[in-house]
C-alpha cells in the first residue's frame, strides 16, 4: 500500500487532463499493475519482445519523418505520417521528458492502424506500459505483433 507511492503519483498523472487531455488509461478500470501484467503476459504468449517492438516503431517513425509531416509509404506496406508540436511531455513516472510528437502508422497488409509518440515508446520500453484500453495511444501487444509481423 505505502510502498507504491510512486505508482500512485504516476497514476494521478495518467488521468485525463494532467499531462494529455485524454490521459493514458482510456476507459480501463483495471489497476495499473494489472494492465502492465496482462500486457506482459500477452507479449510472452505472442513471443514478442516489448523492447524489439519499440525498436520497430522507432524505425517506422524515423522512416516516416522523411515525409516532413505528410504521409509517406514505408517498406511498401506502411503509410506513416508524423506530426510535431512545440514543447515536451513529461513521463508520468517522472523519469524524463519527451518531445511532443505523434506518429500514425497504417499497415495496409494487416489493416492495423496505430498512433504513438516518443513518450509512448518510452512507456513501453522503460515501464512495460502499453496504456489502458480505450486510450487513443494504446499499443496493444496483439496489434503490435500483427503490425510488425
Amino acid at each position: 500500500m505505502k510502498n507504491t507511492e510512486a505508482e500512485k503519483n504516476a497514476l494521478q498523472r495518467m488521468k485525463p487532463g494532467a499531462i494529455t487531455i485524454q490521459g493514458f488509461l482510456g476507459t480501463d478500470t483495471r489497476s495499473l499493475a494489472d494492465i502492465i501484467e496482462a500486457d506482459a503476459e500477452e507479449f510472452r504468449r505472442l513471443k514478442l519482445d516489448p523492447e524489439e517492438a519499440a525498436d520497430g516503431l522507432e524505425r517506422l517513425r524515423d522512416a516516416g519523418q522523411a515525409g516532413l509531416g505528410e504521409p509517406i509509404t514505408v517498406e511498401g506496406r506502411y503509410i506513416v505520417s508524423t506530426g510535431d508540436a512545440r514543447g515536451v511531455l513529461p513521463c508520468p513516472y517522472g523519469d524524463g521528458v519527451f518531445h511532443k510528437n505523434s506518429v500514425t502508422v497504417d499497415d495496409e497488409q494487416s489493416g492495423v492502424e496505430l498512433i504513438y509518440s516518443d513518450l509512448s515508446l518510452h512507456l513501453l520500453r522503460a515501464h512495460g506500459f502499453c496504456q489502458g484500453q480505450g486510450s487513443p495511444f494504446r499499443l496493444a501487444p496483439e496489434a503490435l505483433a500483427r503490425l510488425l509481423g
Partner: protein
Amino acid sequence: MNPIILGPLVTAGIAASLALLISLIDRVVNDYGEVSIDINGGKRMYKVRGGSALLGTLAAEGIFVPSACGGRGSCGACKVRVLSDVGPHLPTEIPYLTPQEIEQNVRLSCQIKLKKDIQLEMPEELFSVKKFKSTVTSMKDLTYDIKEVLFRLDEPKDIDFIAGQYVQIVVPPYGSVKESVQRAYSMSSRPLDKNHVELLVRLVPGGIATTFVHQQLKEGGKVELVGAFGDFRVRDTPAAMVCVAGGSGMAPFKSMFYDMRENNSFPEKEIWYFFGARTTKDMFYLDELRQLQKEWSRFHFIPALSEPKPEENWKGETGLITDVLEKYIKEKIGKDEGLEGYLCGSPGMINACINVMTRNGMEESKVYYDKFA
C-alpha cells in the same frame, strides 16, 4: 471533577499547548526574513520575502521565466543559472537537466526555495517579458486543423517584440484539466500593431492547450498571455533569406514579412519563402502571400504541394518541400550577397532542410531555426 469533563479538557489542553508550540517553531523556522535577488551581476536587484519558490517570487517582481506547467516541476522549462550556493540539485530537478547544466548549476526555478541571498544569471531579454490580460477579438479557421486567433491586449495595452518571437498562452483549468498550464506559440502579428497579438494554433492530438483554443475559446473570451520570448529573428545582413515552413510554422514568417515590408527594413535582403503542404486542404494564406509578391518585388513566394489531387488543378510546384528547395537553391536563387536559412517547423523538417542547405553550399552557422522542441 467528573472524568467525562476532565478527560476531554486535559486532552484538549495538551493538544492546544502542542499546537501553540508548533506555531511558535513555525514562525522561527520558516521565517527567512528579507533576502536579496541579484540578477546578472547587479543589473537587477530585488529585496523580497524569503520562503517561497524562486519562480513565483520572480513573477511577483515582474520577471517571467518561461514555464509550461505553472511551477509543478513537470515541464523543465523554467531553468535559471544560480551562481550562489543553494544546496545540491534535488531529485525532482535532475531528470530535466543535462550533465553540462548540472555542472553549471542550472536549476529549475520552481523547485528551489528562496532561503537566503541569491545570485542569478539569465538572458537580458527576460527583463522585458510581461504578463498581459487579453480578449479574443477574432477566430478564423485557416485549414481544418489550424486556427488564426487574434487577441486584443487589455492590460498592459502594448507589447514590444521583434518579429519571430513567441508568447505563452496561460490555459486556465477546464473540463478534466485541473491545473493551469502555459504553452508557447509564435506570434504572426506585426510588431507595429502593439495592441494586438495574433497566433496560429494547430490542433494537436491529446494537446491540452490546443484543444482549449480550438474547442473552448470563443470570440470575447479572456486569456492571459506572457511574452515575448525567443531569439528567432531576421539577421541584419545583406544576405538573401531562404525561409522554409509548413503548417503553423507560417506564423513567425508572416510577422517578419509584413514587418519588413511596412518598415522597408533590411532593404538589401531578397526573400524566398517556401511553404509546403500536402494538398490544397492544408494550404492557407495563398491569396494574401501571392498579393504580397505582386506588390513587393524582392519577395518570392513558392508554395508547394506534395500530393495535389488532379481535381485541385494545382499550378504551383509539386513534390516534397525539400526537393523544391534544392531545385531553387541550385537554379533560381541569386547568391551574390550570400544566403541565410530561416526555418520553422518540426525537428524532422528542420534537419532535412539543413541537410539540403549545407549540401548546396550554405553555411550551417547561417541557418537559423525555431524548432518545435
